[in-house]
């Protein structure tokens, strides 16, 4: 009974299917447009709901599928991050070096020194009581004994020993050092000696009657042929004056401009300027007040010790 009815129904359904197909093939959306949109809306809703339900599951599939890719991405990003942070550190370092070199060039340009830049690569041990550093240039760079070594702030020391690719610099704080120095803005000269304390060097003035102000700047007096010291290099400033006017010698305490404990980029003066730059290398700072300014003998050439013996200074008398 059911079988026969079912077969009839099936036959009808086949006919219906064929009719649908033929009607659909006749073209136009004609008879099915409405039905299609209704069914489409209903089934589309189901599809959307299903999509929502299955999205997490599919996401897991994606996750599995992209597992290898993500590992690659992570390692690539890590490498990139490492490279970038290296770059950041390096660029900070480079900037510091560039600043140091800029300062050095400013000094060299102001004093018209010809310098060869160098880097401090080693510091002598303090327990040997000598203040020395090693720099990374030597004879092959044209370095010779007794050349002046400066940095952006001022005088550092002089070359004590030269090797092929390195040189040893004795710093001005070394107790064995003595530098002919002049108080900027005046003609007062004297001898600066190291004490082993990097913040207090001793300056013995030749004229015991000279008037020295706290805060006055010192520059090198200059030696014959600029060795060991080229003229006009800033050294430091007066922080204290001991002894009263009229004593046999008067001693001033000098604080060097350059920090001897933090040296990196330095320059070796390979050729001193033809003329004494006088005070022009000193950075702009409150000028040491001289009691009675005397006109500077501008034509004074780089003077050695002998012809630099100070004339009795008019202001002191």
């Amino acid at each position, binding site marked *: 009974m059911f079988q026969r009815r079912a077969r009839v129904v*099936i036959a009808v359904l086949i006919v219906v*299917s064929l009719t*649908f*197909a033929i009607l659909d093939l006749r073209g136009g959306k004609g008879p099915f447009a409405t039905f299609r949109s209704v069914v489409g809306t209903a*089934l589309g809703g189901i*599809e959307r709901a*299903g999509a929502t339900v*299955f999205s997490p599951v599919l996401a897991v599939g994606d996750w599995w599928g992209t597992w290898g890719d993500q590992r690659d991405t992570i390692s690539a990003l890590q490498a990139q991050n490492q490279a970038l942070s290296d770059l950041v550190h390096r660029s900070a370092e480079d900037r510091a070096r560039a600043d140091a070199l800029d300062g050095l060039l400013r000094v060299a340009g102001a004093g018209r020194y010809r310098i060869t830049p160098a880097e401090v690569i080693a510091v002598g041990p303090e327990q040997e009581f000598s203040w020395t550093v090693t720099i990374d240039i030597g004879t092959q760079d044209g370095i010779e004994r007794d050349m002046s070594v400066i940095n952006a702030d001022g005088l550092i020391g002089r070359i004590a020993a030269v090797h092929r690719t390195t040189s040893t610099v004795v710093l001005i704080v070394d107790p064995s050092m003595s530098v002919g120095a002049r108080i900027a803005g005046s003609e007062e000269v004297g001898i600066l000696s190291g004490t082993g304390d990097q913040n207090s060097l001793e300056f013995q003035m030749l004229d015991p009657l000279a008037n020295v102000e706290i805060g006055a700047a010192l520059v090198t007096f200059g030696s014959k042929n600029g060795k060991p010291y080229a003229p006009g290099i800033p050294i430091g400033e007066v922080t204290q004056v001991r002894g009263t006017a009229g004593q046999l010698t008067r001693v001033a305490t000098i604080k060097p401009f350059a920090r001897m404990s933090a040296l990196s980029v330095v320059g070796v003066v390979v050729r001193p300027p033809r003329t004494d730059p006088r005070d022009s290398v000193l950075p702009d700072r409150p000028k040491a007040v001289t009691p009675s300014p005397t006109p500077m003998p501008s034509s004074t050439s780089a003077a050695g010790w002998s012809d630099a013996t100070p004339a009795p200074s008019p202001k002191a008398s």
Partner: protein
Amino acid sequence: MWARQVIILMVTFFIAFLFQNAFLGRLGLPGSTPDLILVSVIAVALAYGWEVGMMYGFAAGILVDFAPSTEGVIGVNALLFMAAAFFAGRLLDPRDRTVPLLIGLTAGTVGAVILARGIIDSILGQPTVVWGNMAGLILSGAIYAGFLAPIVVMPLVWVVKKFTPEVAV
């Protein structure tokens, strides 16, 4: 009895349609999309006999034809699903409903349906059939159907026997 049977069939179609479009279709498997709806038609034919299977096939086919993501000629899927239900229901004796036979029958039927759809579509000239892909489509479709067959048929037969034992084959 009638009501329960209709409900079972509707739920079957609903689940099959949902998984087919929202899950299997989006897995991006190589070859053809696993045709879960067609497998469900075969399963119904095996569980209820070929007559009910053909009716279910007609309904499922018509709905698939009208569904948003299908652009074929309306009625083609209905006819193909009815044919699939007829052959599956007639060929397999319910008594030797073993898993290997199920897999083989389902895979073969699905492969044949894909081929027949290609032939009909190219005759009707409706969606352009790319015959170069046909072998791969048939093979992958048959393999997927083989995997789906036990998963779909066994639970459906169990449900049918449990809730509508009078009409179960």
